[in-house]
């Protein structure tokens, strides 16, 4: 069974806050849910499927379902793959809808890392000490003691990519430059200043070879999506964004033999999604690509087949990712690098901007002409250890 054409993205909402000192995390989830339902023209009583990940407080979806007063949920999914969770959820929602398990699926993400929530760098906390035996994650004792953070584990990938393919810091910087060109038009973007390659490579080194401006922003906030059945979609007065294909793929060190940090799980999730959708990378008009760091974008663009492996540096240079300028307009909201990376998870905003582009509702300065086919792709966890790649391909109907 395929999900092609069996489900529609009919609601998308990105919380306008980037700093939320006085709004709780459950409240942010609920406000995002309300925003997406209003966008779709639905109410909470229409929701019969709820999807969330580890940022939702309380036993998977149970606390938020109760908080939001969702009375008609008959399908739950709290698959957790870090920042890519919400892209995974779009695929899972489409599957559940295709199987008749629900017809209106709500996906939410929210959090407040700027106000006491998780902060980047805390990703690999040690779990030992005290003399007692642990029964936690099996890799913990051998990995979590070495000061691994998102920055330096992604730095390791960048270092190896440079070694194998000659990729340069200047090439990586072009990815940030492109994001900043887009963010200048987004009134909600956390960073709106256009930056240059020189500014990126001269910003302070965080974890070799990644500079401060190679890293995404840290923001509070959240987002929500509504995925519906074709019948519900036809009843709504909104542009219809059809889900064509989805793929997911976990990747880890796998026993340590043949470790290759220069590619991501996108080499598997991408082909799965493209095959189901019946399209190729050359057909894609707009791409939302997870941008926790510049290297994340470079590797995923290669792995998804937008260029040959090792040629990503050349592909992104000279404005290759800038809307209206380059070959592949990407992250036209400014992405995680400039706009928003709510609670250190950028998956949902990737889908939201793809929906805006397919509806023709992106900012006029960055709207891609005749944008009828888009991809949203993300990586959750760590590229340098274990992660899950997730790909969704969508098209505008009519």
């Amino acid at each position, binding site marked *: 069974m395929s999900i092609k054409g069996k489900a529609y993205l009919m609601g998308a909402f990105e919380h306008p806050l980037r700093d939320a000192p006085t709004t709780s995390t459950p409240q942010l989830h609920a406000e995002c849910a309300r925003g997406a339902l209003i966008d779709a023209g639905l109410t909470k009583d229409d929701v019969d499927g709820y999807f969330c990940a580890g940022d939702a407080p309380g036993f998977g979806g149970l606390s938020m379902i109760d908080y939001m007063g969702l009375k008609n949920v008959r399908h739950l999914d709290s698959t957790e793959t870090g920042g890519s969770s919400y892209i995974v959820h779009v695929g899972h929602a489409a599957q559940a809808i295709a199987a008749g398990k629900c017809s209106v699926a709500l996906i939410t993400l929210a959090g407040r890392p700027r106000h006491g929530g998780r902060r980047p760098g805390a990703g690999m906390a040690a779990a030992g000490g005290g003399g007692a*035996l642990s*029964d*936690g994650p099996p890799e913990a004792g051998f990995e979590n003691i070495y*000061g691994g953070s998102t920055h330096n584990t992604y730095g390791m990938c960048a270092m190896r990519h440079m*070694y194998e393919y000659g990729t340069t810091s200047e090439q990586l910087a072009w990815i940030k430059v492109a994001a900043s060109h887009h963010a200048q038009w987004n009134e909600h973007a956390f960073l709106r200043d256009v930056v240059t390659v020189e500014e990126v490579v001269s910003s302070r080194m965080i974890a070799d070879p990644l500079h401060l401006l190679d890293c995404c922003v840290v923001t509070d906030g959240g987002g929500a999506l509504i995925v519906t059945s074709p019948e519900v979609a036809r009843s709504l007065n909104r542009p219809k964004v059809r889900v064509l294909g989805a793929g997911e793929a976990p990747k880890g060190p796998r026993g*340590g033999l043949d470790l290759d940090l220069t590619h991501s799980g996108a080499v598997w999730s991408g082909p799965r999604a493209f095959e189901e959708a019946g399209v190729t990378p050359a057909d894609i008009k707009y791409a939302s690509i997870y941008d926790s760091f510049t290297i994340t974008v470079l590797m995923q663009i290669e792995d998804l087949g937008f260029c040959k492996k090792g040629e990503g540096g050349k592909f992104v240079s000279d404005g290759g990712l800038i809307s209206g300028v380059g070959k592949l307009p990407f992250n036209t909201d400014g992405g995680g690098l400039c706009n928003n990376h709510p609670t250190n998870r950028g998956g949902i905003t990737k889908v939201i901007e793809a929906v805006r582009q397919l509806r023709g509702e992106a900012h006029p300065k960055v709207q891609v002409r005749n944008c009828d086919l888009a991809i949203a792709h993300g990586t959750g966890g760590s590229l340098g250890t274990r992660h899950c790649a997730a790909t969704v391909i969508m098209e505008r109907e009519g």
Partner: protein
Amino acid sequence: MSEASAHMTRPIPAPAVSIETKPFWDAAAEGRFLIKRCTECQKAFWYPRAMCPFCMSAETVWEESPGEGVIYTYSVMHRSPTGPYAIGYVTLNEGPAVLTNFVDVAPDGLAIGMKVRVKFQPTEGGPPAPVFAPA
């Protein structure tokens, strides 16, 4: 440059020891570096676990390793209250890649392909942890 930053050191927290991995840490306390090998498919693997990640055999054994290999990749973390430190992977001569810290080397002294050897660093209240220094 101070001695500490010339030769990167970083306090290492106590590792999580499980019933499955206790032999590794007991050996570490004696200065011996163990890896796991599958007696069915003969492959060595890392991190140590009871079941072979390649063939799912339960017939795995501990094997003492000289802990020699080459740097696969690394990153020097500059955003650190205790000074810069290097995280990276070593490809052991037996095959598996091991996540670790590199010590006894200056931040600009590391290179992919450099030969390194294991040593053990005391941790904060736990058994000593394997780190790697230039061979």
